[in-house]
């Protein structure tokens, strides 16, 4: 009698305990297993995260071409710069290089080099200056406090501070007075078209077979940009700093 009673009373409690323990173990361990699997998948999987970059062939660019890059970027993102203004933003600019001895001249577009180890990201106190997984370096306009330390740290003078009230902003390029901005590598096009995207500056100058500004995935050995880098090589500007820029130049 007593044993029957025991059985009746104890079993539900024991069952609840076992059920609870199993549920707890599942809650604790399952996510770990899942995370482990996900981690394994991403490190072994064929589809590696892309690293977007540009290869600029300066021999194929005339002065007018570089001007066209600048105008295309202005139209795409809605910024403009008065000649001689020290406070206007310039996301991309035309550089004229003159050899000090021979006097030989070259023109090239200079913009954010989307470094693998960007000094602007290192120094930003709030983390507003950040690098996406695909290598694009951006400024989060919501957390930028406008301290300009990233502008002090950038080796390429690629960043601008917005000194004046803005009008007529474009939806693809939100900007903000009192914050810092720079080339986005036309991230809105990349998010839409992936590897088939063409940044505005490249679109403005690419004619025919040879692309003077070639956009592509530096992490994919089969991509056109990787193939051309492999066969022709390219220059990293201020390679001595070891920041590994994603924008490379041919013909310098």
């Amino acid at each position: 009698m007593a044993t029957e009673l025991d059985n009746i009373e104890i079993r539900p409690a024991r069952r609840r305990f076992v059920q609870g323990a199993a549920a707890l173990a599942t809650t604790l361990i399952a996510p770990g297993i899942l995370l482990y699997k996900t981690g394994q998948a991403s490190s072994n999987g064929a589809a590696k995260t892309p690293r977007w970059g540009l290869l600029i062939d300066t021999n194929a660019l005339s002065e007018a071409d570089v001007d066209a890059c600048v105008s295309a970027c202005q139209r795409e993102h809605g910024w403009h710069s008065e000649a001689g203004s020290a406070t206007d933003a310039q996301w991309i600019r035309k550089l004229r290089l003159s050899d000090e001895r021979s006097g030989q001249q070259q023109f090239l577009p200079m913009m954010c080099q989307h470094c693998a180890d960007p000094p602007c990201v290192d120094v930003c106190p709030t983390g507003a200056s950040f690098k996406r997984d695909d290598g694009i370096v951006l400024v989060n306009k919501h957390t930028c406090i406008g301290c300009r330390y990233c502008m002090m740290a950038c080796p390429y003078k690629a960043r601008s501070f917005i000194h004046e009230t803005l009008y007529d902003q474009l939806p693809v390029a939100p900007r903000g007075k009192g914050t810092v901005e720079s080339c986005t590598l036309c991230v809105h096009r990349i998010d839409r078209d992936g590897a088939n995207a063409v940044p505005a500056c490249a679109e403005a100058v690419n004619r025919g077979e040879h692309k003077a500004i070639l956009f592509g995935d530096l992490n994919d050995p089969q991509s056109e940009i990787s193939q051309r880098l492999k066969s022709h090589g390219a220059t990293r500007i201020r390679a001595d700093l070891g920041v590994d820029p994603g924008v490379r130049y041919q013909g310098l």
Partner: protein
Amino acid sequence: MRTIYSEIRTSSPQYWGLLAVFAVITALGIAAAHRMEVEGHHISGMSNQVVWGLPHVFAIFLIVAASGALNLASLASVFNKAEYKPLARFSAILSIALLIGGLAILLLDLGRPDRLIVAITHYNFKSIFAWNILLYSGFIVIVLAYLWLMMERRLEHWSRPVGMFAFAWRLILTSGTGSIFGFLVAREAYDSALLAPMFIVMSFAFGLAMFILLLLLSFRLDRRELDASHLQRLRKLLGLFCIGILYFVLLFHLTKLYGSQNHAYERFILLDGGVYTWLFWLFQIGLGSLLPLLLLYSARWQHSPRSLVLACLLIIQGAFAQLYVIIIGGQAFPLNLFPGYRVDSSFFDGVINTYSPSLWELLLGCGGLTSALLIALLVVRVLPILPQNLPGAQN
């Protein structure tokens, strides 16, 4: 003899007049910052080339001087120099006041000062700037605790360990301030570990000069007596710190001169940089270091309090000249993207950048300075910070 501390009780027109002047300048500084915020920074002299300007010169001066102003307290607590003990409380108050003034300028100069909460809640721990936010706020808390322990006699034995901690913290803090520039590897003017120790020695001198001036001012306002022997000790210390700065400046430029890649930059600062060359040789080295040394050590003037005051003022103007050359001169010199090439663009590549400070920046900077002085002069009125008199040393 036991030191008696008391609030200053003066109601002299000089005291209130001085407070009124400081308050007005502080208010003008806040108004100027508001104007820059509303209009945008284009009304300042700063640009996309010279991104940090006169406000940063004032701010860095105050922050560096703040850590140096704590020296007298450290000498008493850490190095057991009993003769400095009566001055320790004032030293702590002045360092907090100067730091608050400097931080206020930095904050108000931000493009988005309204996002202070973002700066407090979002940290990028790789950023030396973010470390400094922690170092500065920590400094204020530690020095306040230190001050309290010095003032609460039952807990006074704790003031020594806390004073040591504050001393270590301030050395790290000033290293952090110097490293804001020292870590900028891409710019020839910076990129040097020497900037951290140089800023520490600068803080010793600038902080002590501010301390001496403010001490003499508050004693005079309240008609308290200051024995000449104290001034003699401070005078010797100040001279030593001046020599320290000269040593680091010499070492910094010699290091840069040794590598030929920096010759263009050195030529710019030392020979043909116009305003920067003048500021360096005349105001920093001549009037800011050599003349003060003469005033402090020459047998002819070394017993005159006036020569000490003059030396302090000269050192402070030299401090501004030095920071102007470091901060603005360093940005005026262009980045060298293509060695061996002449570079030009619509974005001022390859040219010496121009900068002329606007009235708004000057007001913001002065406002930060006067806010610090205002805090110091008000606190000594409401708390027993200053010793009633400073008798001569026992020995």
